[in-house]
């Protein structure tokens, strides 16, 4: 089964502007750990927005876990995202007025599927969140602090727990390590891919820093598959 399948996808931000993404084909298979890279402005985040069903392509097809996103209503796409994708961003991933635990559990609030899968192991929701936080090296005493008092690295690990809880099929990380120092970057990456393997999730990791690509199953250079960029250079 392919987790992501793109054919002849075309996207622009507005009708007047030039194409931002023009991708003839892209396929990601279940369980793969993909490293997607490209320079700043090459459309990485835009592509993730399309995969999340928040943006809609102008042309082409875009399938996620065999669901045709282009044929779905926006509410159905929101639902699909809630049920099957865990997102992780560059920084400020946490909601400041929620506790660590509530931030982790946020994924389960908007998806009953994630909630059911989280308690399938026999744990309660809280126990499951705690288990993930333990795995991600967030000590128990940190869990009761306001999230604003956590370091950036700790915040990213809490966000990772939120992305992983309820075992979504896909974990999408948009430069989650760029605010960390080199040593912590690799540590975080190791932790994330290990947890994705445990959860059986496909990992789509986005970065503009190719040095991080070690350990991934496959590297995809966005400029190589995005015709919009090659045209721009040609022009």
């Amino acid at each position, binding site marked *: 089964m392919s987790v992501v399948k793109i054919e002849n996808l075309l996207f622009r931000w507005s009708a007047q502007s030039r194409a931002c993404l023009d991708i003839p084909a892209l396929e990601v298979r279940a369980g793969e750990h993909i490293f997607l890279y490209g320079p700043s402005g090459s459309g990485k*985040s835009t592509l*993730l*927005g399309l995969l*999340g069903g*928040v*943006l809609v392509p102008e042309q082409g097809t875009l399938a996620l876990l065999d669901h045709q996103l282009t044929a779905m209503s*926006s*509410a159905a796409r*929101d*639902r699909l*995202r*809630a*049920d099957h994708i865990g*997102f992780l*961003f560059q920084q*400020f*991933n*946490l*909601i*400041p*007025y*929620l506790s660590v635990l509530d931030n982790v559990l*946020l*994924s389960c*609030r*908007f*998806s009953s599927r994630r909630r059911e899968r989280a308690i399938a192991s026999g744990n309660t929701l809280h126990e499951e969140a705690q288990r993930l936080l333990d795995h991600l090296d967030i000590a128990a005493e940190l869990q009761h602090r306001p999230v604003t008092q956590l370091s950036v690295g700790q915040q990213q690990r809490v966000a990772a727990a*939120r992305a992983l809880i309820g075992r979504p099929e896909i974990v999408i990380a*948009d430069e989650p390590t760029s605010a960390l120092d080199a040593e912590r970057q690799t540590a975080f990456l190791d932790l994330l891919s290990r947890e994705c393997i445990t959860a059986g999730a496909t990992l789509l990791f986005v970065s503009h820093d190719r040095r991080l690509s070690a350990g991934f199953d496959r590297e995809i250079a966005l400029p190589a598959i995005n015709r919009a960029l090659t045209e721009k250079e040609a022009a």
Partner: protein
Amino acid sequence: MKYLLALAARSAWNRKLTLGLTLMSIALSVALLLGVERVRQDAQESFAQSVSGTDLVVGARTSPVQLMLYAVFHIGEATNNIHWKTYQDLAAQPAVAWSIPISLGDSHHGFPVLGTTPDYFEHFHYGEAQPLAFTQGQPFAGLFDAVLGAEAAEHLGYKLGDRITLSHGMGDIGLAEHADKPFTVVGILARTGTPVDRTVHVSLEAIEAIHLDWQGGAKIPGITIPAEYAGKFNLTPREVTAVLVGLKSRAAVFRMQRYVNDYSMEPLLAVLPGVALDQLWQVVGVAERALLAVSGMVVAVGLCGLIAVILASLNERRRELAILRSVGARPRDVFLLLSAEGLFITLCGTLLGMILLTASSAMLAPFIQSHYGLLIEPKFISADELGLLGIVMGVSLLASLAPGYGAYRLSLADGLTPRI
């Protein structure tokens, strides 16, 4: 849905200082609005109850409002009086159960003096058909006896047995005194919250007696009739200012009114006090309505402040909205989250305002009762006030849609990666 509301509450709590201040401003403005409305209601009610049980007020022909002003409120002066003979004619009509002649024109330290008969204390009713009550003393019996309204007595510090002199004409300064014929305070009335409180009551004969040696508003030079001889003169009044009439049956009121208005001996006017009071309120009520409009505007300002605060927070919350979107929140969830905040704050503000008002009116009620004669009933909320609050909530609901819509647009444009 339930979680979204909980989330909205948590988020609001996180900004409790700014939102708390706006909540406070809404609470105060709502308390002001309700307070003004309540005072307005009570004032109108007590105004409408200045006289009750009287079926007709009769005076020389003038406008109904004018007649009410001097006959009931003792404000201004009658241009013409009614002849005593006319009064006797009216009083003798078969439909008439009782009639109280009143005579105005003199004053005591700015308080109007009312000449009347002892019937006044029996038949004059106010409020919901409440009779006048004495806190001290009794109705006047002797020629130079006076009965004081509660406010007049309190303001001037009089007690039973005190001697007072009347001044010729209305007003406070530069009036000629009826100094040669002092009166004795024999009774003090209980507070009514009506013009009675400000009135000095004496007998019609006394009014006649103090004017024996007067003519055309001035003392006749060279003639002085001492008080002790006044009783020897014929003190039947020649004129009265107005008559309060009670009928045997209310059904006769229009027939009697027509009789008075068509009276052939002199031009008269009979008004139904309820109707005339309503007309009068249309005039004086303008100020109260303006006050209500101003306090309505204060509430609008409070709501604008609230919406401004929420809209201002929107930019700081783009990150938060994007996170919620990423975990599956729909754009309409975001809309609800932001709209709920405004509505929630207004709801709390309104409740707090009601509590503030109830508490403060409970504390101030005795003061207002004793100083203004206004009885503030310790009610929590009336149907009219509920209507006002309904409008407040409706407007706040509409206003709250603005930040909701802003957030909705923002989260659609930002997607998952807001540019800040």
